[in-house]
């Protein structure tokens, strides 16, 4: 009997201590983590819109969309988060689009778990450069190991077609939802 009491007491006390330690650590770390995430988002926005001065959140349900304005208050376009499933895991990126919602400003990959060396190339500069000034109508499409013909086409990374396709589909879906919500 004594043994049972000891078993229960030991594990409960250990649970208690671990609970307190964890919550103290969480309270210490949480504000910092939120600050980190915020300025990482900010860094992405300013990278997309180099001469942006201010960005403010546009109320749009759970989609994250910022209206970006430069010094003189002229709207430069919108920066929005697009998220979806890639080859191996979720891909999260921030894309910039001009006010006319027809041409892309560029994209910035925030998080992705694509295969390093292959899918991970979507984060490389030369792949992302293709999205600067890309037309989004009717839809962003990709072409395999050939020069992109029309203005709304990009060239997929050799050996990582699924990741490249994923980037395009995620962008298309997000642009569609933003267009609907903005046009309302």
């Amino acid at each position: 009997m004594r043994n049972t009491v000891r078993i229960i007491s030991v594990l409960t006390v250990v649970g208690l201590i671990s609970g307190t330690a964890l919550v103290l650590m969480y309270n210490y770390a949480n504000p910092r983590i939120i600050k980190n995430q915020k300025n990482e988002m900010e860094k992405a926005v300013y990278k997309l819109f180099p001469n942006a001065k201010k960005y403010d959140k546009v109320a749009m349900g759970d989609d994250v969309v910022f209206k970006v304005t430069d010094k003189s208050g002229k709207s430069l376009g919108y920066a929005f988060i697009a998220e979806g499933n890639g080859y191996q895991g979720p891909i999260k990126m921030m894309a910039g689009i001009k006010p006319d919602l027809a041409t892309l400003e560029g994209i910035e990959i925030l998080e992705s778990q694509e295969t390093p060396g292959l899918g991970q190339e979507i984060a490389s500069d030369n792949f992302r450069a293709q999205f600067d000034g890309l037309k989004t109508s009717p839809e962003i499409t990709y072409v395999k190991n050939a020069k992109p013909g029309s203005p709304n086409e990009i060239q997929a990374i050799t050996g990582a077609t699924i990741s490249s396709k994923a980037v395009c589909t995620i962008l298309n879906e997000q642009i569609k939802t933003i267009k609907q919500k903005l046009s309302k």
Partner: protein
Amino acid sequence: MNNVCNQTCTGCGKEFSKGLWRQNPIFVQVLGMCPTLAVTTKALFGFSMGMATAFVLICSSLAVSVIRKLVPQQVRIATFTVIIATFVTCADYFLQANFYTISKELGPYVPLIVVNCIILGRQEAFASKNGVFRSLLDAIGMSVGFTAVLILLGSIRELLGFGTIFNFKILGAGFEHWVIMALPAGAFITLGFLIGLFNWMNKKSKSN
């Protein structure tokens, strides 16, 4: 003071050094493979993973060796793992708070230190049977051995996979990246040969 020290100190040098070579956690005991294979795509991640594991291993060894007499047999594993889990979560949040970029790259592997076989293995085999001082030495030895191998494996894979070590460009642009080195398969094969090399060196030093 010193007779206490040399009384407890018999072989404590050995306690520390065995983790480095003779009982290296990866090469000899073949423990803690999950982070070793997964995170060593770059030497920097190997280093930071090694540091995080070192922190958790040392703290939990201390905690376990302090309370080893109180814990009854039936809940031994459960208690040890909860202690380890608590230290890992603290390490995880600390990393996210202060070194956000590294923690994003280490991704899901930081929490996997909880079930990293080295830590529970060391608690079970050593910390739960020896005094605080020896467990501390053993933990430090083991974590240094572990980090060294992580950095070694990380730099090999990074060199062949991306042509850089610690992000310094080593191999010129002409070098065709071995993409396999960044993939799981590359990790398995490189570590397999490393263990072979380790055994071979051991055998050679033992025979002559």
